[in-house]
C-alpha cells in the first residue's frame, strides 16, 4: 500500500466505524481530491458524509470547529499547505481553545489533513513546510507520518482523538514508498516518537518525507562504521522528548533534519530542549540540517534547497569527529 492509499484506507475505516465522522474539502468527493486521497469514498459513503465544499478555506476551518462542537468528527482536507493560512485564524482562535474556553465541557475533535512539503516540482505554496508555525499554537496537535503504516495508524488515532489534530501528509512520498499495512482498524499511539533504527554513535531525528533521506544517510554512515540511531518524531506537538533525550544520552550526538526553513524551524525547539535537559551527556553541539531561509524554489533549483543525504551524512560525520 502506498502512503496515500493508507490515508484512504484509514478514512474509509473511520467512516465505516463511526457515523459522526464527516469528510469535507474542495474536490474531495466527485473528484476524489487533488492527490486522490479520498477517491471512491463519496461513492461508498454518500454526499452527506463526504462533502465537496465551495472553494473557501476559512469556511472549511470554521465549519470543522462548529461541527466538532456538536460532537461530529469532521476531517477537513486542505489541498496544499499554502492554502491553509486562512484557516489559521480558526485554528488559533477557536479550534485550539474550545476546550479551554468551555472549561472542558466541549472539546474539538476535528482533524485537518494538509499535504506537506516540497519535492514534487511544484512552486511555492504547493511546497510549503510551515509545521513549526502550527506546533507553536498551544492546544493543537501536529502529526506527520513518514510511512504508509504510520499514515494509517496515526490518522485513525487523530480522528479518534477528542482534540484538534493537524495531520500533515508528505506529498513527496505519497506514492514513492510502499509498505505492508493491515487494514485492521488499529491506531498507533500519538505523541510518541518511533525509533526506526538503533545505533550508538549519533542520533538522527527527522519527520515526514525527510525520514527517507535520513534513513539513507544512516545506511551510508554504517558503511563508514558510524552507527546512527534514527528517530521519526511523528507527532511534533506534543513531541516525545523522552525518547529523544534517552537516545542522546546514549549517543551524545545528534543531527536534526527538516526541510522547512531554518530560522524558527522545529529543529530549533528540539535542539533547545536537548541543550536544556541533556547538556552533560552531549559530546558535540546538536546540529540542524534544514531547508534555507528563502522562498521554496521551482524545480530547477529545488535540489539545492532540499536537505540531501550527502548533507546529512557530512553533518553526522562532523559531530562524530567533534570529540
Amino acid at each position, binding site marked *: 500500500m502506498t502512503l496515500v492509499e493508507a490515508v484512504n484506507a484509514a478514512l474509509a475505516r473511520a467512516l465505516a466505524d463511526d457515523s459522526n465522522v464527516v469528510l469535507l474539502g*474542495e*474536490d474531495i468527493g*466527485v*473528484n476524489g481530491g*487533488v492527490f486522490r486521497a479520498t477517491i471512491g469514498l463519496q461513492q461508498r459513503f454518500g*454526499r*452527506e458524509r463526504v*462533502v*465537496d*465544499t*465551495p*472553494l*473557501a*478555506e*476559512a*469556511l472549511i476551518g470554521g465549519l470543522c470547529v462548529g461541527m466538532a462542537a456538536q460532537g461530529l468528527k469532521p476531517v477537513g482536507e486542505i489541498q496544499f499547505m*499554502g*492554502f491553509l493560512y*486562512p484557516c489559521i485564524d480558526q485554528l488559533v482562535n477557536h479550534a485550539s481553545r474550545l476546550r479551554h474556553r468551555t472549561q472542558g465541557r466541549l472539546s474539538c475533535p476535528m482533524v485537518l489533513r494538509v499535504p506537506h512539503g516540497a519535492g514534487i*516540482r*511544484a*512552486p*511555492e*505554496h*504547493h511546497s510549503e513546510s510551515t509545521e513549526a508555525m502550527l506546533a507553536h499554537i498551544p492546544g493543537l496537535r501536529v502529526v506527520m507520518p513518514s510511512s504508509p503504516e504510520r499514515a494509517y495508524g496515526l490518522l485513525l488515532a487523530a480522528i479518534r482523538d477528542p482534540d484538534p489534530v493537524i495531520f500533515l501528509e508528505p506529498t513527496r512520498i505519497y506514492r514513492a514508498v510502499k509498505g505492508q499495512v493491515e487494514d485492521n482498524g488499529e491506531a498507533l499511539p500519538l505523541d510518541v516518537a518511533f525509533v526506526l533504527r538503533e545505533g550508538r554513535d549519533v542520533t538522527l531525528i527527522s519527520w515526514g518525507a525527510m525520514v527517507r533521506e535520513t534513513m539513507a544517510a544512516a545506511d551510508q554512515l554504517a558503511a563508514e562504521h558510524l552507527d546512527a540511531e534514527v528517530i521519526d518524531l511523528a507527532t511534533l506537538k506534543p513531541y516525545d522528548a523522552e525518547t529523544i533525550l534517552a537516545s542522546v544520552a546514549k549517543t551524545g550526538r545528534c543531527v536534526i533534519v527538516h526541510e522547512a526553513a531554518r530560522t524558527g524551524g522545529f529543529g530549533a525547539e528540539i535542539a533547545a530542549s536537548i541543550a536544556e535537559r541533556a547538556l552533560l551527556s552531549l559530546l558535540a553541539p546538536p546540529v540542524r540540517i534544514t531547508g*534555507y*531561509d*528563502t*522562498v521554496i*524554489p*521551482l*524545480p*530547477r*533549483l529545488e535540489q*539545492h*534547497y532540499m536537505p540531501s543525504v550527502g548533507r546529512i551524512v557530512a553533518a553526522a560525520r562532523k559531530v562524530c569527529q567533534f570529540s
Partner: protein
Amino acid sequence: MGLAKTKKQAAIPATTSETRVSGPSGDGFAQAPPDLPKEVELRVYRDMLMIRRFEERAGQMYGMGLIGGFCHLYIGQEAVVVGTQLALKPGDQVITGYRDHGHMLACGMDPKGVMAELTGRRSGYSKGKGGSMHMFSIEKNFYGGHGIVAAQVSLGTGIAFANRYRQNGNVCVTYFGDGAANQGQVYESFNMAELWKLPVVYVIENNRYAMGTAVTRASAQVDFSKRGLSFNIPGEQVDGMDVRAVKAAAERAVKWCRDGNGPIILEMLTYRYRGHSMSDPAKYRTREEVEKVRTERDPIEQVRARLLATGRASEDELKRTDAEVRKIINEAAEFAAHEPEPDPAELWTDVVR
C-alpha cells in the same frame, strides 16, 4: 438531501451576443454588441490566435517535460482578456490568478519571456523562479499572476485604492474565477470598494468549473453578475465567447469606474476547453459538452467566420496571420527551451534574510 445534484445546469455561454444587466436599476438587456472596425477585428483575431497558439505550445512543452510546476491553460477563454484589454488605456492595471498566460500576452508582455518563465529559465519574467503562476510586469502594469485563489481580489482592490488616493484616473481590472467567487475576501473587497467608490472592474471569468467542481455544485447564486447587488455594485452578464460583447461591456465598465461611480462586476460567460491543469483527467464533464462549445461558440472561429463572410479578410490573408503568429510562438518556444537555467545563487536574491 441538501447536497443532491440540482437539475439546473451551469449557465451555458449565451447563444446570443447580448449582455444582460443586473444592476440596481433592475434586470434588462443591453443592445447587441456593435461590430468592430476592420483593423480592430483583424487585431483581435491575431491577439486571440497568439494566446491560443502559445497555450497549445505550452501544453506540448509540458508534455515533453520542459515545464515544471503547474500549468493552467487559457484555451477557450481568449476573448475575455483580448476584448477587455481593448477598453483600457496606458496606466490601467491588470491583476489575475494563476490561469494567467493569456492576460500577460494581452497586456503586451513578450511571449519569449513568458515561455521562458514556464520553462524556468534565467530570462523568464521572474528569472525562472516564479513559474507559470507568478509573473509580473510593472512596465505593462501587470501585477501578477497569483496562485492563491481569490487573494488577488483584495490586492486589486488595494491597487484601486491607490488609484483613488492619487486621483490618477487609472482603473484596476481584477480578474478571478467562478470558484474564487466563493471566497470570503471577495465580499470583503466588494464592500470596501463600493464604500470608497474605488475604480476597480471585477471580471469574473465563469468558465463553469473550479477544478472538478461545476458551478452548480458549489454556488448558491450562479448568476455571478448579481454577487455585488447587496453592496449596490452593478453587474453585467457578458457573452465571454464574443469578443465584441466583451469589448463593449468592458468599455462601459471602465467608463463607469473612471467617472467615479465605484466598482462594477462583469461576469464573463466562458469555457475552458482543457483540463484544470495539465494533470486533470477531466472526468467531471463529457467530451460532448466540450465539443459543443468548441464547434458552436469558439471565440476565434467566430471572428474568423465574420472576417471571411464580410470579405474583410481572405483565407490567404488569415493564413498569413496564422503563419506570423506561429513564427513568433516557435521563436518563443526555441528561446525558452535553450536559455540557461537560473544560477543557484538566485536562491538568495530578493529575499530578506
